[in-house]
């Protein structure tokens, strides 16, 4: 399997509390990989390290064979590594379409001066961004709320906006943090269909979730417990693993 993301021996502590202990994780290109674990297992810390919000005490994050451990969040984003958040972070005062337009930022390049002067290139770029935003709105079933402020939408639609905004940026690796949180069953099913479509479009997905139904879309699952990966494999293997059962059920 060609690796797109490789986390090598990552360790991290907060004020002496060891949260991650030499974690290794691989995500193959075009795959959906799940990361599960009980509360306090270190999932969010690992996610923040992968996306660049935290610098690990030790270890490396390799993206497409390049060490990106020292790169900032925007640099990682421009390389194709994009994440969503556990609580959806929409741009509340912008409309849904404008959220998506903002998502086109890294694929456009006009400067502040050109934008101020409203040069023909700047205007053409804006037209392209609008067209792309409208088309992605259609694709994600958001056309009906396109002009509504994103902050006024229900939680489920805000999640979709966040996902659509990430997708419009043409990510190579999409890291989703608890994407089903706050969604009803129907919305979770819709989300699973979206994720499968995205993977078919060659977008690699790393999925952190408590929701075992959602994690079922992953071809491989890593189980994190007390800062260590205790198991990895397909869902059926994971479900049968004694250490996983102990970690989740205490049996």
């Amino acid at each position, binding site marked *: 399997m060609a690796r797109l993301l490789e986390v090598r021996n990552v360790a991290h502590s907060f004020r002496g509390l060891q949260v991650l202990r030499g974690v290794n994780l691989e995500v193959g290109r075009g795959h959906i990989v799940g990361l599960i674990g009980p509360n306090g297992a270190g999932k969010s810390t690992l996610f923040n390290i992968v996306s660049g919000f935290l610098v690990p005490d030790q270890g490396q994050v390799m993206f497409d064979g390049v060490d990106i451990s020292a790169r900032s969040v*925007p640099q990682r984003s421009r390389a194709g590594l994009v994440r969503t958040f556990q609580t959806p972070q929409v741009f509340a005062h912008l409309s849904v379409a404008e959220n998506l337009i*903002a998502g086109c930022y890294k694929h456009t390049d006009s400067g*502040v001066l050109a934008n101020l002067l409203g040069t023909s290139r700047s205007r053409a770029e*804006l037209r392209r961004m609008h067209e792309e935003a409208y088309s992605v709105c259609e694709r994600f079933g958001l056309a009906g709320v396109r002009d509504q402020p994103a902050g006024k939408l229900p939680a489920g639609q805000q999640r979709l906006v966040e996902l659509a905004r990430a997708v419009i940026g043409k990510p190579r690796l999409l890291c989703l943090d608890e994407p089903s949180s706050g969604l009803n069953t129907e919305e979770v099913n819709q989300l699973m269909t979206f994720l499968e479509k995205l993977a078919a479009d060659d977008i690699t997905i790393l999925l952190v979730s408590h929701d075992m139904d959602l994690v079922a879309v992953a071809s491989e699952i890593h189980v994190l417990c007390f800062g260590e990966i205790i198991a990895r494999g397909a869902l059926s293997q994971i479900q049968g693993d004694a250490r996983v059962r102990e970690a989740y059920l205490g049996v």
Partner: protein
Amino acid sequence: MAARTRIVIGSSNAGRLIRVWMPALALIALWVSVPAFASRGLIDILVFAAIYAIAGVGVSFLLGQCGIVSLAQSVFFGIGAYATAYGTTHFGWPAPAGFAIGIGVSAVIAFAVGWPVLRLSGYFLALATLALAMIGQVLFLEWDWLTGGTLGIGGIPPLSAFGFGLNSPKRFYYLIWPVVVVVLWLHANLLGSRNGFAMRAMRDAPAAASVLGVDTHVLKVKIFVLSAVLGSLAGSLFAHYASFVSVDSFTVERAISFLLLAVLGGTRTIVGPVLGALFVTAMPPLLSSRFGEISALLFAICLIAAVMLLPEGFGGALKAALRGRGRH
């Protein structure tokens, strides 16, 4: 069907004519005719309001579009004013050179100060910019070899355009308002662009904006520099209009009044700073002429009432009213 479509398009064009062009033409007619009936005092107020609006636009888009509270605009206003005052009176520079030096110095200082300071946020950032305003005020006073201290710099020549001296309030009035319109046009262009959307994204959810590839710190610094450039431009215009500058015009109170006009006008609208500047400049003399000693108290009451009744500012209220009218 085709006939029906034509009718709809026709009525849409007529609607646009009534909604957009008629008010615009009325405003232009008003702008042209004001000097014919207005007193010198009123023209003075309109000129100063325009100058403050230009500086206020810089404060307004920092606050409304980027979420950055800046109390440092008085410093850049002062730099612009002193650069052209000193250059034109001591070295005999043409005014554009004074403007350019003021803008250049302001941009460099805004970059040098903004780079570290804009890593702060919220109250800490506001306090840091307040400190900058206080330092500026002290330096404008202490560096009297450059600024003239409390005595200031007098005899600043009036601006001229195409050999036509702008040496009267009426003539300056006809220059300054088109400059305001150009500044608002630039502001509107920026807001509806790639970087405009990035600014607003950064304001609403900075972490999410950085995930989209926006280097929020760099963008903040760029916009801070742009705001300083507007402050400097306004300061240079102020110096040539007043023909005299002293430290009294560049105090912390001036910085607060720029922030005040931005908030009163509505920081999320394009015309907000203009409305705010008109209010902040016109109300004190108007109240003073009618109510004498208690005018300051009345102005304070007006400010509180305006902030409480119009949380989105005059611009926000105007926008809501126009939107409401458009629906009916």
